């Protein structure tokens, strides 16, 4: 072995935050290499992917539009992951939030009151939370592994959404396209500024950011969640109620994902379509890890992830590259992050043959 790992004895605080940066840089380098192999100019492609989308205010506002659902989902996941509850179900919770929000919006499509939006948003949050709660129920009541149940619920949610969008919620005047009718104006999230699509979901996201930060860093509830995650036995030993905490974490997680979903249909999209989410719920997993389960870190990571989405679209349009670049980069980034994280607890040591010999000689002397 040329490279050996030596335990540091304790965590390196610097590496804790350097590792995500290192992972991002390594991802970009591998990406550049990949583009070069495919016969594209690497620098040019990276420019198309990461810089060109942000050339103007519209680009920046689009970045924020894409970052909102990712940020909301990832904040929720951070709460669950702090408790080591591996909720993979943000995608399904998001879809269900979108579905329930749309069902509500279609119900009250002619209602011209400020309350319409409140009802739509509440329906979305409640449905997301309920979908998360389902995972909590299966876990606390039946001890079913939440990774598997939440991912199954993703597939079920997707099929439910498809069923409704092809069936009960299909716009009767929509030429048989699988789409709902456009929502009434009262059920739409107002725009933040005249140009661009940035909507009032921004305020929800900022509110959620602060709330999750207080929860995880200041409150005793957050402390209990962290203890549960780090050491289940210790949590039981002092009487923290594991089941209640699991419920809480999954309800928060699901509720925030549901908010993200309803924010999409009531915001930029304005109706229910089959492709509500290009995998935001899955991207949020990478974002949560990349942000170290810390709300501020997650904020930056979600912006980066949104940039990848935006860049992926841009690269598809201008260079005819598959949009799957976004997912590819996501996966790479998470991989590199996990690999770099080894540096938090271990110190790399180059172990060359001659070096070993000299240390041996020293020890003998």
């Amino acid at each position, binding site marked *: 072995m040329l490279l050996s790992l030596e335990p540091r004895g304790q965590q390196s605080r610097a590496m804790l935050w350097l590792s995500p940066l290192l992972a991002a840089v390594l991802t970009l380098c591998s990406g550049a290499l990949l583009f070069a192999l495919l016969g594209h100019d690497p620098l040019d492609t990276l420019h198309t992917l990461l810089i060109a989308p942000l050339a103007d205010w519209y680009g920046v506002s689009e970045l924020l539009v894409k970052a909102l659902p990712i940020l909301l989902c990832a904040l929720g996941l951070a709460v669950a992951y702090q408790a080591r509850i591996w909720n993979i179900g943000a995608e399904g919770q998001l879809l269900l939030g979108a579905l329930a929000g749309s069902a509500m919006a279609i119900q009250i499509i002619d209602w011209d009151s400020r309350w319409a939006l409140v009802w739509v948003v509440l329906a979305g949050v409640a449905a997301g939370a309920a979908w998360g709660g389902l995972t909590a129920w299966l876990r606390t009541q*039946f001890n079913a*592994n939440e990774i598997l*149940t939440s991912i199954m619920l993703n*597939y079920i949610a997707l099929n439910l959404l498809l*069923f409704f969008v092809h069936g009960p919620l299909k716009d009767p005047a929509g030429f048989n396209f699988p789409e709902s009718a456009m929502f009434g104006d009262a059920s739409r999230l107002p725009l933040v500024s005249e140009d661009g699509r940035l909507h009032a979901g921004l305020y929800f996201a900022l509110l959620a950011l602060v709330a999750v930060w207080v929860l995880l860093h200041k409150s005793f509830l957050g402390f209990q969640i962290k203890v549960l995650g780090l050491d289940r036995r210790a949590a039981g030993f002092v009487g923290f109620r594991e089941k209640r905490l699991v419920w809480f974490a999954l309800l928060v997680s699901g509720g925030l994902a549901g908010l993200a979903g309803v924010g999409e249909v009531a915001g930029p999209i304005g109706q229910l379509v089959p492709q509500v989410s290009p995998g935001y719920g899955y991207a949020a997993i*990478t974002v949560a890890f990349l942000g170290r389960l810390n709300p501020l870190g997650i904020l930056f990571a979600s912006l980066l992830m949104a940039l990848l989405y935006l860049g992926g679209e841009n690269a598809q349009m201008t260079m005819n590259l598959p949009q799957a670049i976004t*997912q590819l980069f996501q996966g790479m980034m*998470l991989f590199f992050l996990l*690999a770099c994280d080894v540096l938090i607890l271990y110190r790399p040591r180059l172990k060359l043959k001659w070096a070993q010999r000299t240390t041996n000689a020293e020890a003998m002397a």
Partner: protein
Amino acid sequence: MDLDLLSNIFYAMVRTGTPLLLVALGELICEKSGVLNLGQEGMMLFGAVIGFIVALSTGNLWLGVLLAMSAGMLLSMLFAAVALGFNANQVATGLALTIFGVGLSTFVGAAWVGKPLAGFEPIAIPLLSEIPLIGRMLFAQDILVYLSFALFGLVAWVLLKSRIGLIIQAVGENPDAASAMGLPVLRVRTLAVLFGGAMAGLAGGYLSLAYTPMWAENMTAGRGWIALALVVFASWRVFRVLLGAYLFGLASIIHLVAQGIGLSIPSNLLAMLPYVATILVLVLLSRDAIKTRLFAPVSLGKPWQPGH
């Protein structure tokens, strides 16, 4: 319901259960050695796309199968490097592998979506395939299904009868003791992960070369995850993996049954069935926490490094 329909259902059940069986056998070995690899879905997809591209470009189906397996192994090597070499959290690494595999397969296969391929054809064994009810199911399948029978036999023999099986079980139960005894824990685990990768790649190849000979994004549709649930369902016992795979296969073709008895249910709702069935099975089997703990390999999912 007439005999023909039943015979058809049995036939389709085994066909549909085969990819699940293949992945689950690989993951079973992997989990027995103490490693939880949640990346099955990603490895399957990569196997499926590589197998398809190779078979279509070379015209050689077997080369496709071979490279599908290699593709699965390649991704599992990544997993082994990060989760075993760098001691990373296995849950997170497995998720990363799935996300990566989904992205990579979509990226690589973008230009190949929807192209037609003449895949493996069923080979009916004379006489045997004419046995009523079970003849078609067992003796009129394509060659990869027959291969899955053989691989099942191999895995069962290894786990139940061979010294290698003892070693895998020892490593998965107590890596410290196994290491003190001189067993190469990390090497055993790495090999188990690689075997799992090859099986997942093969399962992916089965989908794109035999089951539905074509490539589509996310064509595995969660089968990698269902296979993970299947291993829990089987309580880590190899014969139950076989049973479970075919039961899940049955759940996935229930629309055939529904059509057979003249029900019309929207296809999107029917498509949920395997996932609902998975949850139900998890609920039924995990309810007894103590029992689950008894069967699960003791060190499943726990990082381990040699040292003091």
